[in-house]
């Protein structure tokens, strides 16, 4: 339990690790999907290749789209790309960086699917059993009325009794599986070499300083969007609470006027009310909220927080009637 919590905390520490975590989960889902999928070769000459290549290609496309869908950076990138300039200039390098990192992460699960199918070999056997030359192997059954193509097409299906437990079927399957695994390992080797080369050679071409900047600002955009959503949520909560209390109090003013004796009405504010007023940041009308949200999209603020960071702080000094200082912030 503790380990799981630690792992989750590590992954949630910044937005890049969250994306990496989701990427890995999707790769595991892809493996699980392959093992639970019941591969069912039709064993007919016209349909074998179509079915096998379909199973090898369509699920990776689905996994790719899923990878893009669950990646937060896709939304951030689209926002940054499509927004009007407003007070903040646009940085195309950030958009390019977000795009490339999103594509790289989305490609992991499809590659895992393709590699797993190649290393397992069932799909290759189904697709290419018709193309194997049966002369290479002994034991081809020739007492059935079928031609060679149809017999070879039935090789992937274990239940078919025309082979009669002969070793012909097993030999052909082994042969094709060997090819399939060779292709799989070569692709894996190629990808790893490509990744290693890319890592080693990139510093020669890229300016490290600009890449540090790009990474910082892309992380910043992600965090900013998350914080904006959180602030909106908190603001909505306080707005709702005040609206409800105000509604009750409005009803009160109507009823108070109709009573024979005036009520003793306190108007003292509780501490939590002050805190809530602060959280509203002065935005307390529907039109103000609409204007705020509109401006957030059409004219994002500049990246300059000097005004609020160096706001003068109020210092309080409490003195009692005799002039003795009870408490002071100074």
């Amino acid at each position, binding site marked *: 339990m503790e380990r799981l919590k630690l792992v989750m905390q590590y992954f949630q520490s910044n937005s890049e690790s969250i994306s990496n975590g989701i990427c890995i989960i999707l790769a595991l889902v892809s493996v699980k999907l392959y093992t639970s999928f019941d591969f069912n070769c039709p064993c007919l000459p016209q349909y074998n290749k179509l079915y096998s290549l379909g199973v090898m290609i369509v699920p990776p496309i689905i996994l790719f*789209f899923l990878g*893009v869908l669950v990646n937060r950076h896709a939304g951030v990138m689209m926002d940054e790309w499509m927004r009007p300039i407003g007070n903040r200039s646009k940085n195309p390098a950030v958009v390019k960086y977000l795009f490339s990192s999103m594509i790289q992460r989305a490609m992991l699960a499809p590659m895992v699917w393709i590699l797993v199918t190649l290393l397992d070999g069932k799909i290759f056997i189904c697709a290419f059993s018709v193309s194997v030359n049966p002369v290479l192997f002994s034991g081809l059954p020739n007492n059935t009325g079928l031609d060679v193509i149809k017999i070879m097409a039935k090789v992937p299906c274990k239940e078919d009794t025309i082979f009669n437990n002969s070793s012909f079927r097993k030999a052909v399957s082994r042969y094709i599986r060997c090819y399939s695994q060779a292709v799989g390992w070569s692709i894996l080797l190629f990808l790893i070499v490509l990744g290693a080369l890319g890592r080693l050679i990139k510093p020669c071409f890229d300016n490290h300083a600009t890449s540090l900047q790009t990474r910082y600002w892309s992380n910043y955009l992600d965090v900013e969007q998350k914080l904006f959503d959180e602030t909106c949520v908190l603001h909505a909560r306080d707005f709702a609470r005040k609206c409800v209390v105000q509604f009750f109090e409005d009803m009160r003013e109507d009823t108070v006027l109709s009573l024979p004796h005036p009520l003793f009405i306190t108007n003292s504010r509780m501490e939590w009310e002050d805190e809530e007023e602060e959280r509203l940041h002065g935005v307390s009308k529907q039109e103000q909220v609409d204007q705020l949200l509109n401006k957030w999209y059409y004219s994002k603020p500049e990246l300059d927080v000097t005004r609020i960071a160096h706001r003068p702080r109020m210092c309080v000094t409490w003195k009692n009637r005799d002039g003795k200082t009870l408490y002071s912030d100074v």
Partner: protein
Amino acid sequence: MDKFRMMFQFLQSNQESFMNGICGIMALASAQMYSAFEFSCPCMPEYNYTYGIGLLIIPSIWFFLLGFVLNNNVSVLAEEWKRPTGKRIKDPTILRYMFCSITQRSLIAPAVWVSVTLMDGKSFLCAFSINLDIDKFGNYSLMMGMSEMEKMKLLARIPCKDLFEHHEIRVAASRYIKCISQACGWMFLLMMTFAAFLIRAIRPCFTQAAFLKTKYWSHYIDIERKMFDETCKEHAKSFAKVCIHQYFENISGEMRSFHHNRSSMDDTDKEEEDKRSDEEKLLGIRAQEDMNKVLWNWHTCKPALALRKDKMDGATNGFVKGHTPVVEKREWAVYYSKV
């Protein structure tokens, strides 16, 4: 147990993740229900198609409706749709947004059912075994000399293992139909994922500013409803407390005021604070008719979305003439400074 508690806490942290959790649970339930369900094809020409296709479609409709039932936002949407305008105008884009998000979440469990059914292949085999051309699978002599009706009856028995004697033909035919069914399943998944991708990835190109607005206000409506329920509960509690206090005071009126003057300041101070905070929590609503009016107006005449800043004491309490509050405040200040 600890794991479940952590998961529940994480899911309940906000409304969206809670709804996503319910979505995920329903998807798993749909997959589990399929594996637990015992599929039994009737193997008769008149009923095969109905059974096969019915099993594909009716549970998906059922899961879709169940998604609507389990979603809290449905009642919020209905309320917002049907309320009278009152002081707050209605925004149709918010209703559309809420309806779209509810529908999207409810579509996940039916999609899982349909894909699992198609990948398994049994329902297609049951529905389409009659339409097979059995000559493709070899053994041409099987259907010589049979009438149309007998041919159909024979083909209809293919899905049932114990009713069809020719093992190889049955295996070959079921493999063929299962392959078609799986192809349909993958195409279906591809279409759904592509549609979701288009909606999520392309939408920001068009209506991002309006989208921020509708997202905020639909979340606001949900939260406001919760806040109103909470305020009503707190009010009811304070109402009950004050009501009971007053009842006891009415019964033992003289004795209470006599004791009140003689007891020390420390004891009654806390009680007075409690009584005062309860009185304040009442927000001025102290009678049944007033509370009924509050609850009635909340639906028929919702307040405008515009908060006032707090007014000064004198303005609201004009007719009280300000004596009692001023005296109260002074005493409060004097007492405080003695500490």
